[in-house]
């Protein structure tokens, strides 16, 4: 029995093949088609950002209307979003008001979370060996300590062999770390190709087709 291929799958396969071939084969017609399709993708990606913001509003609005737990924070989020949007729409994204909100609210909040991240990572490092005590964990921790110590002078003192362009820290960062990262990236690249080919073949359909 012939199985019908949905239109969405046909579009995905067709567009994917054109863009993929456009990368490998330098053919004028193919390049033009690739450009057109990429332009459409850029527009759709920007629209998706807007749709995401609307989805965010919808989720928190439902929390507020449903009087769920911590819905007061959702109300603050909704009001903040609308206020910032109004500021940008009225005065422009480059205006002093918009930049004031960004510089005095968003940057400090996110920087604080980054500072919190430092504490969390330090705490996690302390507990890591208790959770999993093995050779890899020991090597991981030792490497992290060497990189931390070698990033800046220890109490103002540069330790020979550790600091400097020829020190241990530079050696680890430029040789084993790069090699390991390359290997992982190659594996990730293969996985990315496999995933992309599955989507191109229609075997994976994250788009609901």
């Amino acid at each position, binding site marked *: 029995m012939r199985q019908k291929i949905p239109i969405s799958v046909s579009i995905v396969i067709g567009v994917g093949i054109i863009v993929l071939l456009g990368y490998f084969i330098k053919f004028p017609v193919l390049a033009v088609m690739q450009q057109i399709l*990429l332009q459409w*993708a850029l527009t759709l*990606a920007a629209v998706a950002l807007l749709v995401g913001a609307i989805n965010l509003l919808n989720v928190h609005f439902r929390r507020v209307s449903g009087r769920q737990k911590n819905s007061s924070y959702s109300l603050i989020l909704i009001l903040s979003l609308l206020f910032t949007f109004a500021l940008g729409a009225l005065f422009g994204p480059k205006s002093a008001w918009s930049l004031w909100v960004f510089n005095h609210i968003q940057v400090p909040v*996110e920087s604080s979370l980054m500072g919190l991240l430092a504490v969390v990572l330090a705490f996690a490092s302390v507990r890591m060996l208790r959770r999993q005590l093995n050779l890899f964990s020991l090597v991981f921790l030792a490497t992290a*300590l060497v990189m931390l110590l070698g*990033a*800046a*002078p220890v109490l103002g003192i540069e330790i020979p062999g550790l600091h400097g362009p020829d020190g241990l820290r530079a050696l680890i960062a430029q040789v084993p770390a790069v090699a390991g990262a390359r290997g992982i990236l190659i594996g990730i690249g293969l996985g990315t190709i496999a995933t992309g080919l599955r989507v191109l073949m229609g075997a994976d359909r994250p788009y609901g087709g």
Partner: protein
Amino acid sequence: MGEIRCPMCGKPNPDELDVCQYCEARLKPLIGPFEPADTHEPGEGKGDSVTDWLDSLREHEGGELFEAEEEISEGEEGADESPEWPAEVASEEAGIPDWLAGLGKSLQEEGETLPEAEVGAEQDAGPFRMGDLGEAEKAGEEQDFWTAIAPQEESEPAEQLPSSGEEIPDWLQGFGESEPAAQVESDQVAQTEPGEVPDWLAELEETAGLETSTDALEVEPELEEIDWEALQPDQVDLEAEQESPPVSEDLPAAAPFTLDEEEAGLEIGEMPEWLAEVSEESSAEEAPLLEEVDASLTPAELPGWLEAMRPVETAAPVAPFIEESEGIESRGPLAGLRGVLPIEPEITHLEKPTAYAIKLQISDNEREHASLFEELVLKEGVPAPVEKGIAISPQNILRVVIFLLLFLAVGWPIYIGSQSVDLPLPSREVNQTSQLIDSVMVSEPVLLAVDYEPGFSGEMDAASASIVDHLMIRGAYLALVSTTPTGPAQAERLIKTVNNTAGHAYLDASQYANFGYVSGGPAGLLSFAQAPRGVIRYGLNGEPVWEAAPLADIQTLADFAYIVVITDRPETARVWIEQVQPTLRDTEMILVVSAQAEPLVRPYYEGLPQQVGGLVTGVAGGAAYENGMPRTILARKYWDAFSYGLTLAVIFILAGSIFNTLAGILAKRKYTFKDQK
């Protein structure tokens, strides 16, 4: 109006009835030439399908039957005063198959008589207790049946079984235990005849058996004196043969009762060899049966049908009574034949009901499961106690301690403006970056991609501020662009920060342009690299950015003097390198990245051909860059705090890891020791 005696209960019924009005047994057979002796003259019959010898037999039976009925009617008179429930019991006793009832009837017709005293004695004897019935005719019937099966059957209690060592059939052992099944089986056995016996011979056997068994059933004590060996089938057969009237001349020559040549040549009374062998075998089986039957005749035992009605308190249900259809027909033209189809269809035969246990049988496993289930159900209604959690756990205390220590280590040097720690020396890549920017001419367009998140502002501002300052010192026209939504605002913030700290005045479109956000990730970046005017038409405030003089000749990204990418993510750096760098031709790309991205970006710098002309990594790279600049901006301000904070973090992680590891090992040992204990 004539009367018909019911073959079951023996009560008189009008002859026009087909079914007894007392016990609802059939009065007239459905099939067969049998007719009540009351209404039919001997010799009368259908005649078409009945041979002469059968007719003669019918005449003989008819007379005997008539006589037996009269005898039964006589005995019945004394039973009229019996209570009603025995009558009901009798009606329920329709479960006794008709062939059994008919067999008893025929036995009575053959002249068997029993005095009332004998009947009364017989009532207390064996498994066929008649005391509850209180009906002589019932006793007579059972006695007739009993005598008929006497040569073949023994019904005795298990405790009275002979100790001769003979094997006792299972069905017979049950008689002593008052089991209806055994009772039923005994009935069945009574109807089975071993071997293939000619009909006339079988009839003779029954007659002889009746005569001999009649004597055996007189009084219980006398049962033990019976010479059961005398009741061997072969002997019985011989006797039956001798006593039976000669009927060989009446035997037809046609089937099914045609004798073989061998048998045809036999004289009356002479048994064929094959029949003798079969008879011997059956006698061997019947002998112990006879003994068992005899021994089971104990006083005060219930009859079989009454035993069957007793509730059984055992686990296993008793198998239902299976009617034995292999009985010997005792009357009619088919008398003596085995396997005769019943006159009435089986559906009219009521079977003995199956006995089921009245108590629920539960095994130990099921009882255990049931109690467990009950426990679970009861628990549902009981609220589980809520464990009170610790308000401040040791983990929270540890986090607070870490925060306080780091805050002090980082905050104090910034607060006091400490600059005691020396800035690092510029590395090769930092020097190369500085040389590239040194070659920028005034108003040369430099594309500045600000692709880091606000959360990474602390590190990236410190890493990139000196490079932006250097570009401003060189008078480059900065074109700001970003592939993150917050990038344009971050770019504006960076320019303002450098303006404020370094004293520059990059404020309007004559000095820099903000292209805004390029969506689409790598695809968008590739499009922007190939046709930037097509992707970006207007600036962040809606102004036409390409009208500025430094950007008038820009057609592709390769027309820019340099591309400086400032990002915290290695993926963004790779995308810029892999998508944009191939289109740059001679334009150099400079990367300012976070320390976490260095391992992934460095190969692009150190590879051949070199895809990245300059590389500045993290706060240390920014501090090294500032070390070569005439003035310091942010890295110098953060460097002492950065150094002290890192040192404290390392000490804390090291000490905490050792402590936690030892604590974990000790806790495991303690746990293991407790287990062993």
